[in-house]
């Protein structure tokens, strides 16, 4: 009995923090999402409007567009990060001169705040002063202007995200690869599997839990990307990079449309949970029996 009480005592601080900073705000957002509320308007009252916000959101082209670009962004960024991260992880599994230094440098982006990453990339990509447009023009004769070209802006943001977060993928995949037993790989060689077959039949299934966990983390992170994009493009040009996080931000802060902003947040949270659940069901649930 004593150990049970001790368990609750040790858990209490976490539970309190979780309640005040997780559970309570969540229910508050859900509550607000059923209201029309603009605290800075002439009438700052919170007015209950039922499912009006939800009805509006389904037909809101700006919201649907933001979901579309977000999905594209998440797809390109996370897939590139996985492929690049896996290649780097495999490289770090081998010995080469300068490995320790390279590995340290390669993780540096992880410790940088998104807002700083956004500022630095803005400096590098601003036409006429940025290093990237300058050399693209000088070496290849390509004009790059993320202020006017939607594809350039979108690609730059994907690239920035890949630069920022690939090290995380690399680190988790290294951890997964290191923990693999060597015997099944030697066995597969003897069983007649080539390099590609070993990857698809042995390596990938065996590191699948780590891959899925990494995709979870990156998916949730990427779906709510705001600050880097806000710094770099502000969602532009036009609405080309107006990801759903940026959309909520614009709805809530400049427009002070708290009710509608909350509704979007609830919907996005719902979509995030559903996509993670689908990922879990398709990738990991069949494994529980064998692990």
């Amino acid at each position, binding site marked *: 009995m004593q150990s049970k009480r001790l368990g609750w005592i040790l858990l209490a601080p976490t539970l309190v923090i979780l309640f005040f900073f997780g559970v309570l705000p969540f229910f508050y957002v859900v509550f607000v999402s059923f209201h029309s509320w603009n605290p800075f308007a002439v009438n700052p009252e919170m007015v209950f409007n039922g499912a009006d916000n939800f009805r509006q959101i389904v037909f809101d082209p700006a919201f649907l567009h933001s979901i579309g670009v977000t999905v594209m962004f998440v797809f390109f960024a996370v897939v590139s990060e996985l492929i690049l991260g896996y290649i780097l992880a495999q490289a770090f599994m081998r010995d080469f001169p300068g490995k320790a230094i390279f590995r340290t440098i390669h993780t540096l982006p992880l410790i940088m705040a998104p807002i700083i990453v956004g500022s630095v990339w803005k400096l590098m990509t601003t036409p006429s002063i940025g290093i990237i447009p300058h050399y693209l023009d000088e070496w290849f004769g390509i004009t790059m202007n993320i202020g006017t070209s939607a594809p350039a802006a979108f690609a730059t943001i994907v690239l920035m995200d890949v630069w920022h977060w690939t090290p995380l993928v690399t680190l988790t995949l290294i951890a997964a690869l290191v923990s693999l*037993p060597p015997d099944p790989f*030697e*066995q597969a*060689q*003897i*069983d007649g599997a080539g390099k590609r077959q070993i990857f698809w039949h*042995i390596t990938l299934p065996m590191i699948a839990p780590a891959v899925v966990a990494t995709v979870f983390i990156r998916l949730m992170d990427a779906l709510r990307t705001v600050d880097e994009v806000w710094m770099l493009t502000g969602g532009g040009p036009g609405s080309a990079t107006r990801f759903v996080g940026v959309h909520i931000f614009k709805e809530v802060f400049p427009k002070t449309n708290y009710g509608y902003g909350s509704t979007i947040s609830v919907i996005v949270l719902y979509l995030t949970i559903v996509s993670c659940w689908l990922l879990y069901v398709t990738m990991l649930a069949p494994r529980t029996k*064998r692990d």
Partner: protein
Amino acid sequence: MANVTIDNVIKRYGSVQVMHGVSVDIEDGEFVVLVGPSGCGKSTLLRMLAGLEEISDGTISIGDRVVNDVLPKERDIAMVFQSYALYPHKTVYDNIGFPLKMAKRSQSEIDDKVTKAADILDLTKYLKRYPKELSGGQRQRVAMGRAIVRDPQVFLFDEPLSNLDAKLRVTMRIEIKELHQRLGTTIVYVTHDQIEAMTMADKIVVMRDGRVEQIGSPLDLYDNPDNVFVAGFIGSPSMNFVHGKIATEEGVRVFVSDSGLKLPLPETTARDGQEITYGIRPEHIQIGPGGVEMDVVVVEPTGSETQIFAKAGKDLIDALVKERINARPGSKLGFVINPADVHLFDRASEQRI
């Protein structure tokens, strides 16, 4: 099926040489056991046969083909690892069928062969299970099934029974031997357990420190060990060794140990005064009158036999007899040694005389 020739194989890791010119000829269909203490190079040799380790010098041939630079998957071999190396994410069926799938065989052929192998190994009930849901012995059999379906030229076994408990080990030993008799495929089997080697092998290769100490049939090694190492390694409990010299006393040639114990000698070319290591197996010693008197130290009855440790001076002798003997520690017993059972080795070179 094929014969295997290992010719003067050398293995170096950087500047450290760990295998010093090993040569072994393996006949088609033979069951060969590589045995030796850990670190003797037996597993390395097997891995070189499999193609998992490079060969620094010498040649290895399977059939008539030199395979030094042939990839493991093209050597037409199957291997069973100590850890079984099952694919944890595949069912028993998919584990066994994996080599066939890699060889792009038709689904009906895979079905056919997997079912047959499962039948031989009594795994039919478990085909849909994952390795995690199997016992050690069943996993072992899955690993063997995966080897069988390939119908390879050579089977390689790397200490396949080490992770099983003693009882299961005996059962699996019989199963592997039966399998060999049934398939007739060449088998190279690595173990550190000399009982496994004795019971299973057609031919035993005893290794130490990257060298072959002796090659021969189990009974050949038991009866005529080439040197002290092989004599001590083969046989359980292991052979007694006493160090001393040969002398002639009152016209009779005897062995006199360093602490003065006198033991009977067989006909030998060794000359008087030569430094000798005298070997006698515990099971070749009888207890009775007329033997060498020794002080009993410990008596270990096991029911079927009795093991007695006795001392004379500094020499400790171990005898294994069928009879039940009630001797108290400290009492004296006569140890009868038949000179024909004695093995003599040169003390310095440790080679048989």
